[in-house]
């Protein structure tokens, strides 16, 4: 398993995430897309810190851990806001939430 494999995978993950975010018609799946993006990044960091930097340097892995934490926090806030949206709009379809425009 070389660096390239990891990078390719993370790239695929990232693309999938973006794809989900752009196309899904459900706020939850958008959230999942976002998670995919973040995790692809984490994968990158870990992989780089494993292959690029000397073993004693673990910056990348630390960053990845923080990434996970922040992803969790973000998910929490996101869900809260989705609740609010649902309360106000009675739906969580992103394309129905478009009163602000122009």
């Amino acid at each position, binding site marked *: 398993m070389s660096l390239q494999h990891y990078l390719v995978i993370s790239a695929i993950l990232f693309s999938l995430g973006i794809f989900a*975010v752009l*196309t899904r018609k459900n706020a939850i799946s958008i959230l999942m897309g976002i998670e995919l993006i973040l995790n692809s990044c984490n994968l990158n960091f870990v992989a780089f810190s494993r292959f690029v930097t000397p073993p004693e340097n673990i910056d990348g892995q630390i960053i990845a851990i923080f990434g996970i934490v922040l992803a969790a926090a973000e998910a929490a806030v996101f869900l809260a806001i989705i609740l609010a949206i649902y309360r106000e709009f009675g739906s969580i379809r992103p394309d129905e939430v478009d009163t602000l425009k122009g």
Partner: protein
Amino acid sequence: MVVPLISIILLCPLAAFAIFALLGLAKRSFPRQDLLSTAAMLIALGCSLYLLKEVVPKPEPHTVDWISLGKITFSMGFYLDIVTVIMLIVVTLVSSLVHIFSIGYMHGDPRYPRFFAYLSLFSFSMLFLVVSDNLLGIYIGWELVGLCSYLLIGFWFEKDSAANACKKAFLTTRVGDVGMFIGMMMLFTRFDTLSLYGDNGIFTRITNPEYLTADASGIFWLSIAGVLIFCGAIGKSAQVPLHTWLPDAMEGPTPVSALIHAATMVAAGVYLTARMFPILTPSSSLVIAYVGGITALVAATIAIVRFDIKRVLAYSTVSQLGYMMLAIGAGSYVAGLFHLTTHAFFKALLFLGSGSVIHAFHAMHAHHDEEHTDDNEHEHDNHGLVHAHGSEIPPDQDMRNMGGLRRKMPWTFGTMLVATLSISGVPFFFSGFWSKDAILAGALGKAMVSHSPHYYILFGMALIAAGITAFYMFRLIFMTFFGEPRNQEMHDMAHESPWVMVVPLLVLAVLSFPVVNPIWFNDYVKPPPQPHIHAPQHAQLGPDTKTGDANSGFAFFGISEAEAAEEESGKNTEKANDVYRIYKLSHNIAMVLSICIAGLGILLSWLFYHRRKFSAESVATTFRPVYNLFWNKYYFDEFYDGVLVALTVWKSRLFAKFDLSIIDGIVNGVATITRQIFAAFIGFFDNRVVDGIVNRVAEVTWAAGGRIRRIQTGAIQTYLFVVLGGIVLIILIFRAL
């Protein structure tokens, strides 16, 4: 002594006006403005007369620096030679007489004081013009008199005809003035100065070969400049083709016509041309002579068929001015000025006389309007004539309402008769004869000396004009004063004018005899040299010129060239004597011819209008086309009107409304053209195109705003798509770089 005198001459009338203006601001007016102005004029007259003996043989300009910019300096000042003094006297004299006359004539007019104030202002401007020693000063006076004539023609501005006439006068002359101004620009660029006399005045400089030279170009631009300056004279002195304003100017009060449009302002053109004599080249002289000749002839022919007494005199004035121009163009400097002087007196007299007649009828004016308009209609019918635009004749000026007045108003009749004899050139006791004769002689002499056909033609023109003049002037006299009263009612009302009006008539009548002695004139007035004309004959004039021998004296009116040549004295006596002989001969021929033709003219008009051997109508019908041509003033106005009617049609598509009263005369014509088409187009252009572009830009910006707005759909995923697109785009673009 000269400067203070001139200052007094200038300041008196100015003060008279200033008092009126200042009190006017306080909405008050001086109790006896008329006396004030008249007194001012009389003082000026006194001073001018006194100046006669102040004139020094070698006149010097008295100048002050007016504007000095680094190396260039514009000076203002007086130049006093005999010509100036003569002009001063003429102006002040006529002006004073007119003032006096007006006291009676304008009596009871609502704007009585203002009239005199204007007269004073005019006199000031005219005098300023006369004494100025530089072109700028002349130009200033030139425009000021224009303003005054504008104000005075439009004195009864409630009349639309008057309102139009004054505007027409100002604009027409203005056209000429622009030409004059361009001429000034040319001279200025050549000489870096506009003063004429003094050490670096133009006339001094021009003798210096660097300015005009053997090479034709020097002469050429000088000719152009000369003609351009002359344009001013064309405008002011109502020469063809800018003459149409003067007849209309008769809308003004008659004293004004006498002062401004007969004696002084219109003569200013001649004066200017005379002043510019040194820079006139042969070619420009010829142009001037032709313009003068044509004017003389055309105006005279038009005058034959007028019925409005003032219009007849107006056209006669135009024609006489043409005469003077012709004289100067033909090099008869002295003759031109002499005729200017004499004409000033007898023409003023004629106008004042007609004024007195009109005054006599004036009372009738009110309740006879409609009746006479009927008369006119009737008139036209049996002549089958169309009235040219703006020639509706007020009944109290229509000669067809007059007749047999000589018993009613003997003084007026007598004085006017004198003037008529004088203008018709009846020998030998009338000044008009001598001056006219001198001009003819000059033209003929020039022709014979220079062997150029041009001057023979010009001589012919002058001669014919002289005949016609005699004819229509006596027509006027006969129609007005002889025969039976055509309109009994008005006749009964008519009465001799009060003495304030008669006295000026008498004075002027006296002056219509050769009081202004031709010999004296010839001795004192000397034409300035024309350095660039290398005259073929250089003559030292024989001593006999200065003798009292009248004939020989007059003979030399014409030979400015010879006199000019005098300075560059080739002592070539027999050549001079040739010239002398030629001129003497020419003079005799001219005199004989002029006497004959004048007699012929008088005789004809006697047969036509007094003995009624033939009827003017029948002649008119036989020579219908010619008659129509004259009656319609060679269709000058019609031509313009025609153009404008076409434009009116045009405009009716362009615009909703259009004021027909605008259409009058060439300048208004131009104004209308520009207003209707050009200016309208530009106005349109301004709104639509120039402004339009700006607005278009604004709209585009707005539209762009709208577009961008529409991208902001409100759907979050669109935004994210833009983000992705942005990223991809950036990467694609900058990777290529």
